[in-house]
């Protein structure tokens, strides 16, 4: 009886220590993660990069193809959400302009974005 009681107490204490170590101190670190699991800040950075590329290429299909790895159900709606969040949180103006250009290219230009629409350069003779 005494041994059984000690064993149970040891198990309970050990399980607590093991869970603390496994969840808090040394949690599982994933190394082959999909882009859909990226932290929000990195997802945002990726979307801005794709938007900047869009301003260079003017190819909305290419932008959608690149954003597909984020695993969002509706890419244009997602771009609109990110763009409006960037505007609401006063993120760098150049990044907002990239996003607004892409949102417009995907047909998701909203009223709040109008002010940030980039004026694309007209062809200037060198």
């Amino acid at each position, binding site marked *: 009886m005494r041994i059984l009681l000690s064993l149970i107490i040891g198990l309970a*204490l050990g399980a607590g220590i*093991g869970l603390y170590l496994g969840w808090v101190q040394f949690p599982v670190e994933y190394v082959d993660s999909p882009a859909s699991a990226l932290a929000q800040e990195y997802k945002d950075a990726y979307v801005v990069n794709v938007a900047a590329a869009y301003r260079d290429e003017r190819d909305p299909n*290419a932008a959608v193809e690149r954003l597909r790895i984020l695993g969002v159900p509706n890419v244009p709606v997602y771009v609109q959400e990110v763009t409006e969040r960037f505007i609401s949180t006063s993120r760098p103006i150049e990044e907002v302009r990239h996003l607004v250009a892409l949102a417009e290219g995907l047909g998701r230009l909203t009223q709040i974005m109008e002010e940030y629409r980039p004026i*694309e350069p007209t062809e200037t003779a060198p």
Partner: protein
Amino acid sequence: MTSSLPPAPPPSLPEAPELPRRTRYRRPRRSISWIALFIGLLLGVGGGLYYAWEIAPVEETDTAPYQLRDEDKAQYVAAAMLRYKYDGDLDRAINTLVELNLGADPIQAVADMACNLARTDYIDSNAGLNGVLAMMNFYRLQGRSGCADQIIPAPAQDALVITLVAPTPTATLPPPPTKTPTPPSAFVVSPTPTILVVPTTPPQRDFVIASIRDFCDSEIEGVIEVFVQDFNGDGIPGQAVRVRWDDGSNIFYTGLKPERGPAYADFQMTPNRAYIIDMPGRANPPANPLVADTCFTEEGIESLRSYRVVFRPAN
């Protein structure tokens, strides 16, 4: 007479009971078995770790780019390189690569990634092909190379081709009549104009702005005149020069106006707009932007300020 003598002692003292010897078999029992507790602890820690790592691991919500699987990591890099191609911000591009923990030489790692992507059907789409080209553009500017260079033809801006078209054909008069009849002909056209294709490769050295001078001329209004020269002051044709303004940019090349020499290129500014000029990936921009503001010539004629910018090799 009564006797007050104490009672006589008993014939012998009773023997004190002998205390049991303290042996390991006769120790008092503790309420806890330390051995069982230790075994329980070991089993508990093991079970707890197994549960926390295998059965119910922490939910993955804040993955960093370096944790991405290879194919997604490559696309993440491609997007960063596309942005670099657009804005030329080398610091940001390098920081992105650092976040990816690509090893000791992250730029060569980009070349290796481009190589791997170029071998797959990733480059079958425009999005993929442009991504790989952007990666190639980046690592080439940093002096690296990879197998993608052989798989994908060089992009136009990396191996600039200047096409020189020979003078256009002119009509020639019909020859005088000869004894030999010839088929009727109104005129004879000389053969197809010769097209000379001169491939040039941008030199790998870097440039600096040797001078910026503004001037006011009624015939040249708001123009940036650029000269890219070598160490000896001779013009270098085919050099990319970039101007950027608030929300746009333009790249143009030297040598496309042969009458002004191989070093020359120019750009027409919009009045009162500020421009930053540089050679993308080759020379840094000046500290102050160039503005086409109003000026007056020596004759008192109103015009727009123009600039003459000279780039020369850094060393």
